[in-house]
């Protein structure tokens, strides 16, 4: 397990925090008294791994949501840096400004050039503000589309990493057409001539996620969520109370398992035991393999087939009852 400074712990990770503190104490004692305590330390480290395993087994939907927002969770740029070489970030929508809530650029992944784009959250208070908590404005979506069109022109596959609590609900965002920007991206993404691989790496909140979330293959990392509204907002609207977020998370069936079960996403990408925040390199390595394999899967078909399949795939999503004279057919 890699050593990261100042690890942070969620409420249900507190038992691990205790073990970390014990290890720290033992190390200090060993230092002072020159006694070899490495056996005890190894035991505690194994206990941590065991705890991580225990937590993973019994995660509730709300705890998955918490993990997707873990303060130590890797964000888009961390994945790009760990998975890719030669990343060149490209800025701006050529119209209004450069939206720092979405990053993107050319990079090499597994020896091949790709366009990689994602929402970027900030790692500390100052950066969180600069990145606007990963909530893009219309110009962010328009930058993303500009980069996707650039990739299409040069026949490079597109990878998008989705991690957003939602598109930004601001005054200027509305003035500049937040709805139109997302709508345009969805419409254009479904017709892109190059393979598009989408990965939900954290929060997949509604239209804000879909604005870079339409592809040939949609992957969800193990501890992420993806649905039409955040559990908090859902609670406030449907339960008329802010206290039902855990129940809302359960009702919304927003976990990777649920989404895969419904056929709304294609694959689940496993994370290091207990969450991606325990080991960035391991998380990125696993993800990298999934993305490379996914690109390979779609690269060989011609673009018209790919586009038709994309339209057909999303076209099947939904459930309804169709009444045929007396009988009832459920689709």
């Amino acid at each position: 397990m890699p050593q990261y400074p100042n690890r942070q712990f969620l409420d249900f990770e507190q038992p691990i925090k205790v073990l970390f503190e014990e290890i720290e104490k033992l190390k200090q004692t060993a230092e002072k008294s020159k006694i070899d305590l490495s056996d005890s330390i190894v035991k505690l480290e194994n206990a941590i791994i065991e705890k991580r395993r225990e937590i993973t087994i019994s995660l509730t939907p709300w705890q998955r949501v918490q993990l997707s927002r873990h303060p130590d969770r890797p964000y888009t740029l961390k994945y790009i840096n760990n998975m890719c070489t030669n990343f060149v970030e490209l800025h701006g929508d050529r119209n209004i400004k450069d939206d720092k809530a979405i990053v993107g650029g050319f990079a090499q992944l597994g020896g091949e050039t790709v366009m990689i784009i994602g929402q970027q959250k900030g790692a500390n208070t100052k950066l969180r503000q600069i990145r606007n908590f990963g909530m893009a404005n219309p110009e962010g979506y328009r930058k993303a589309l500009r980069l996707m069109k650039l990739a299409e022109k040069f026949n490079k596959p597109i990878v998008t990493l989705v991690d957003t609590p939602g598109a930004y609900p601001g005054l200027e965002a509305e003035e500049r057409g937040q709805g139109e920007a997302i709508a345009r991206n969805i419409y254009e993404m479904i017709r892109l001539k190059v393979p598009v691989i989408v990965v939900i790496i954290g929060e997949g909140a509604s239209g804000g996620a879909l604005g870079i979330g339409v592809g040939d293959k949609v992957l969800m990392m193990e501890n992420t969520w993806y649905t039409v509204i955040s559990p908090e907002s859902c609670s406030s609207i449907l339960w008329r109370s802010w206290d039902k977020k855990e129940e809302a998370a359960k009702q919304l069936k927003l976990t990777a398992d649920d989404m895969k079960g419904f056929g709304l996403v294609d694959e689940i990408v496993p994370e290091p035991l207990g969450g991606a925040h325990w080991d960035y390199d391991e998380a990125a390595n696993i993800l990298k393999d999934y993305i490379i394999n996914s690109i390979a899967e779609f690269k060989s078909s011609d673009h018209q087939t790919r586009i038709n399949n994309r339209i057909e795939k999303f076209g099947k999503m939904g459930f309804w009852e169709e009444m045929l004279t007396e009988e009832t057919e459920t689709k």
Partner: protein
Amino acid sequence: MKKESSEDIEYNLTGSETDHPISATDATAPKSKWYKRIRKGITTDTADKKETPEGLWNKCPDCNFITTTQDLKENLFVCPKCNYHHRIGSDEYFETLFDNNEYEELCDNIRSIDFLHFTDLKPYQKRLDEIHAKTDLKDSMRIGVGKVNDELLVVACMDFQFIGGSLGSVMGEKFCRAIDYCIEHKLPFMCISKSGGARMMESAFSLMQLPKTSGKLSQLSDAQLPYISLLTDPTFGGISASFGMLGDLNIAEPGALIGFAGPRVIKETIKRDLPEGFQTSEFLLEHGFLDFIIDRKLLKDKIHQLILLFKG
């Protein structure tokens, strides 16, 4: 035009009509607001209107002008004094648009089901059953094919009365089948939006209607058939983030509230009051997101004119 923007757009998506809404900042909204919503609800209730005895009074929510419901109906539910466009349903729009109110309804045999067993304060299935019992509506969108001054047009129209016109699987499927019909018969397509946004009780399935409908629209585009998107009060969330804003022409009724995020959410985010006229049709036209604004009384002739221009 003065516009009431204090209404909680999201609240309409709960599928409850008379319960008191909550707001994060104000748990007990003033009674007057509540009253106004109920009034609005009455004027948009198709079933009520049919049985309305002549002489029942109707008060304009915007200027308080009082008319008989009969007079208001003859004026296409537009206030004769201030031009306020009352919220109306698919019945009224079809009657406004189609010659002699003659049209064929497509795929009216599709209904929503509670596939996810979603339960908030009430099970979703119970909400559906209640609304099915109360209205003739099967979901929040109906498709009509008819003639507009002798020109055939396929119209998809939302009913706000049905869980706030929310976008769920049925709306997505009907929208797509309407387009298939257009492609098959080489007909132009029009969608009349009036929706608070996505149907939360269908969770991610409702979200996936955005790419589903967009994909189908791209096929309509490939067939070179025109798509006119008419936005009416209110149009928010998933609709504006998909087919609502994807018309070859995006047009709107005057004074309609249209946006991605609801006014309440924006206000809570930016922590200051919203400017006068924010998110109205006029605001959208000014910012370049609408081709034009059209009065309901001129709608039919304008649509006819457009069909001819596309054809000619």
